[in-house]
């Protein structure tokens, strides 16, 4: 009974963690940039979902519209940000690389303060998924199952995209060696722009999906960035599948950690991270160099 509920809760955390971390690790793997503002865009995705659904108050499809519109909008913002800002940071000293992303974190926090204020904002669960679902021998909100399903579908889609399409081949080539890829005629600039757009779409999607579960609050941007860092480092920098596995592990750790020590469930993630790195310095899914 209880275990079934914890498993489902863990899967929900894992799905969200994966969507955030996958974008982060993609940007790092292909563009070699560490984006400290990644979680900020997750937070802004939640607020955008809130504003869209409240603006369309009464419309039954408001949530679904947000689920489509926010990722599309985030992809567009990502493409513009890459072209205007991040492109200038490739190959630059790491301190100068993270500074603009820290500035983006501040800007995001101030934007939230100015537009939405400090009170947490909740998004109501879409009416179509408001029924209880009997799964794993427990009764749980159907929306939880939907989030888990969405995570799995996106992960599978991501795999198809990276492993089975021409675009994916070019992405892998750019990630492996940008200069050689460019010499062989790959338009690496466009590849990096599209990877950035995809990553932003993923993080926007994560924001909308989580909005009915946890709601939006001002401090969550930094928190989710740091949690995604733990996922990415444990999974192995640049490895999407490592991130998926680490997200699953951390999701379960958080969910079952609540049973052991409710207050320290999140801390377990970072303790596990440190423990993994002591024994496998390159992360779980990347061969040590």
């Amino acid at each position, binding site marked *: 009974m209880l275990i079934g509920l914890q498993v489902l809760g863990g899967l929900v955390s894992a799905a969200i963690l994966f969507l955030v971390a996958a974008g982060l690790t993609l940007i790092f793997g292909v563009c070699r940039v*560490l984006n400290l503002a990644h979680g900020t865009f997750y937070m802004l995705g939640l607020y955008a979902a809130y504003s869209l659904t409240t603006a369309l108050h009464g419309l039954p499809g408001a949530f679904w519209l947000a689920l489509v519109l926010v990722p599309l909008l985030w992809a567009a913002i990502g493409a513009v940000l890459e072209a205007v800002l991040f492109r200038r940071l490739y190959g630059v000293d790491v*301190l100068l690389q993270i500074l603009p992303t820290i500035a983006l974190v501040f800007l995001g926090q101030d934007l939230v303060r100015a537009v939405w204020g400090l009170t947490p904002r909740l998004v109501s669960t879409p009416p179509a998924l408001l029924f209880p679902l009997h799964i794993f021998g427990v009764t749980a909100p159907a929306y939880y199952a939907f989030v888990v399903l969405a995570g799995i579908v996106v992960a599978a889609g991501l795999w198809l995209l990276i492993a089975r399409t021409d675009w994916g081949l070019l992405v892998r080539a750019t990630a492996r060696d940008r200069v050689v890829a460019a010499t062989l005629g790959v338009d690496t600039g466009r590849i990096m722009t599209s990877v950035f757009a995809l990553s932003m779409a993923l993080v926007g999607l994560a924001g909308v999906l989580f909005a009915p579960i946890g709601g939006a609050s001002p401090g969550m941007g930094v928190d989710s960035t740091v949690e995604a*860092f733990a996922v990415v480092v444990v999974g192995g920098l640049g490895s999407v599948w490592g991130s998926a596995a680490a997200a699953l592990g951390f999701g379960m750790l958080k969910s079952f950690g609540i049973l052991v020590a409710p207050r320290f469930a999140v801390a377990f993630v*970072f303790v596990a991270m440190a423990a993994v790195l002591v024994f496998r310095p390159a992360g779980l899914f990347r061969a040590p160099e």
Partner: protein
Amino acid sequence: MSLTSAALPLRTYRAAGPALAVALSLAAVGGLALAGEQGLALAVPTLIFVLFAASLNLLVGTGGMVSMGHAALFATGGYVAALLAKHGFDMASAALAGIAAAALMATAMAAICVGREPTAFIMLTLALAQLVYIVIWKWREVTGGDDGLIGFAPPEWLRGTGAYCALTVLAVAGALAALLRLTRSPFGAALRAVRDNAGRAAFAGLNVKAIQIAAFAISGAMAGLAGVLLAFFQRGMFVESAGFATSTNALLVCVLGGTRSFAGPIIGALVFRAVATLAPSVTSYWLSMLGVIVVLVGLYRPEGLAGLLLRPAARR
């Protein structure tokens, strides 16, 4: 990588930099002292922030290790001292224990983070600092959680703002002098060698990892001292001291002032504190604006404010 190191001026302004930093700090404290008790109450946190930023720059500027977890060391020092003081220990032994705990925490952090690629290093320092933050925030029985840890005070003779400010001036000046000596000692040279080319430094016979961990421990002790000074000044420690903003503010200040000179973070910290004190009455979005300014400084003036101020002096 090469882009910035080529753009940074590598000549050191051996005397001009520290002299300028001392002059500006004295001017700031003196100016605030003229404003009386209230001014001194502003001078103390300013000096503490100066020391905190300078201790971070031992890692960032001299060591080339961009740590985003410095707040954890600051908070460890402050909280350990506060806890001991609350349980009846005198200020001196509480302070020493706080400094030692911060150095120990720094060593542990370094043991996990040092020797990785710069990006992983940043992510790890930030994640470990978050762990410290969560523990302080959630372990209410010991740390007081988000209510803060209160219920202790410095000894009678230090309770006046003037006396405490004098103590802070002495402690910060002493720590900065030690830091300056250290950066100009053979150890400092070794640390710079490791920063510029770890492979070559190792080949020359330097124990790269030991040097980096030692730098972390020393930097942690200094950050811990800053935390201790703040704890007894506020007569309390609060969870924000371990937060993301504490680390990033210090990092911004290092870049603003210039990471490659000793005076850089000191000047940067003074400017930051001046802005943080004056700007909120003009706009509540000052931190974002300052962030953008620091980005521009970092990209176009990597030598920072210290470089801008000192360049004419060096030419003469």
